[in-house]
């Protein structure tokens, strides 16, 4: 009972924040400055807030239609997240064309490697093509690949000059969104799909999405366009105050 209430609160919180964030991005005219974020948010609203509940309402929770819709939209959102990370790399490398040329080759290679790693169990005959375990495995590797790429981007941003002041917080938010579910999925695999692990993973996903959306909302509302520098007082200001 409590499990269901917590799940509903998190889920509806996500829906509400997704819509609020899209409204904030449009209201502040940020869709031109942050096209990747805007498209990702739109896909979240279209698939997560509108698409899935519509199919759920029409066919019911235990229907095959909802089951396929859920997994297909999950993969679509995962791919959208990967493209978002790529767009963040592009923004961060706005003044580093040579670095971007390298990344333009490396990023598709990472994607192909992730697909290849997910296909290996089918090739070895351990998983069936129709088995959704393949999709779960692909998602797990994809989450982890995005998490590693996002972390590399975060580290890279400490060394290159980033014009967009909101980018570090957007990357932090996305990191939260990738790290939580990747850990949750790993727990499910390690426990052999125990019910408590599945229940935990089911709550971690919307909770991390909530964390990401709140971080992005802060970035959109509070952070100025230009990059931030921490304020440090001049020597002697403490004595003046005293």
């Amino acid at each position, binding site marked *: 009972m409590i499990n269901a209430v917590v799940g509903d609160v998190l889920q509806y919180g996500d829906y509400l924040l997704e819509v609020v964030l899209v409204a904030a991005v449009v209201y502040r005219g940020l869709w031109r400055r942050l096209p990747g974020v805007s498209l990702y948010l739109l896909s979240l609203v279209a698939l997560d807030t509108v698409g899935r509940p519509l199919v759920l309402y029409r066919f019911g929770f235990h229907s095959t239609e909802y089951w396929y819709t859920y997994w297909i939209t999950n993969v679509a959102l995962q791919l959208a997240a990967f493209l978002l990370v790529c767009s963040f790399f592009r923004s961060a490398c706005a003044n580093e064309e040579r670095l971007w040329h390298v990344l333009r080759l490396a990023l598709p290679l990472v994607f192909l490697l992730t697909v290849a790693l997910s296909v290996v169990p089918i090739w070895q005959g351990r998983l069936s093509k129709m088995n959704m375990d393949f999709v779960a495995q692909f998602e797990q590797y994809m989450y982890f690949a995005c998490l590693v790429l996002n972390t590399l981007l975060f580290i890279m941003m400490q060394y290159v000059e980033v014009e967009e002041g909101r980018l570090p917080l957007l990357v932090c938010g996305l990191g939260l969104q990738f790290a939580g579910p990747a850990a949750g999925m790993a727990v499910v695999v390690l426990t052999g799909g125990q019910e408590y692990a599945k229940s935990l993973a089911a709550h971690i996903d919307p909770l991390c999405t909530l964390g990401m959306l709140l971080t992005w909302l802060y970035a959109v509302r509070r952070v100025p366009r230009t990059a931030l520098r921490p*304020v440090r*007082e001049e020597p002697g200001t403490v004595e003046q105050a005293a």
Partner: protein
Amino acid sequence: MFAASVILIVSAALFLFYLQATCQKILAHKFDQAYYLTIADANRLEFPFVRKALEEFRAPVDYPWVCMTLKCDYLALTYLLKNAANAKHTYTREERLLMLYFRAIFFALFTARLLKLAEKPAILKLTEILQHFADIVGERVNQVRFGDLSASDYLITL
């Protein structure tokens, strides 16, 4: 199994790393002036002196005094965040996050003390959070007019 274990460890570590990085990015918010000086002055807060002692004089850490001072400053500032020039009398989401961050670092400081590790970085981080809180209070108070009263005078009357 091995891959799942690696993913779990790395993901959990990165989750905490991103939480910490988010808090640090919020703390990097630039205020148009050093509001915290007025607030520290009006409320006899001691965190600027703790930081000065650690940064400039490289004094050894007097752990009980530092802990008591920072805890008292934290209680005073969280009260002010809620009640000084705040019509809603509630904390914002980022303030709640930073309050959790403060407690987490306080716990890390306690652990560092037990394990005999360096305490200075944790203490400096705590003073940074307190400075941010004081800056927020100062900025809010500065936006409200109280006749001829300055921010310090107003806060003394609270």
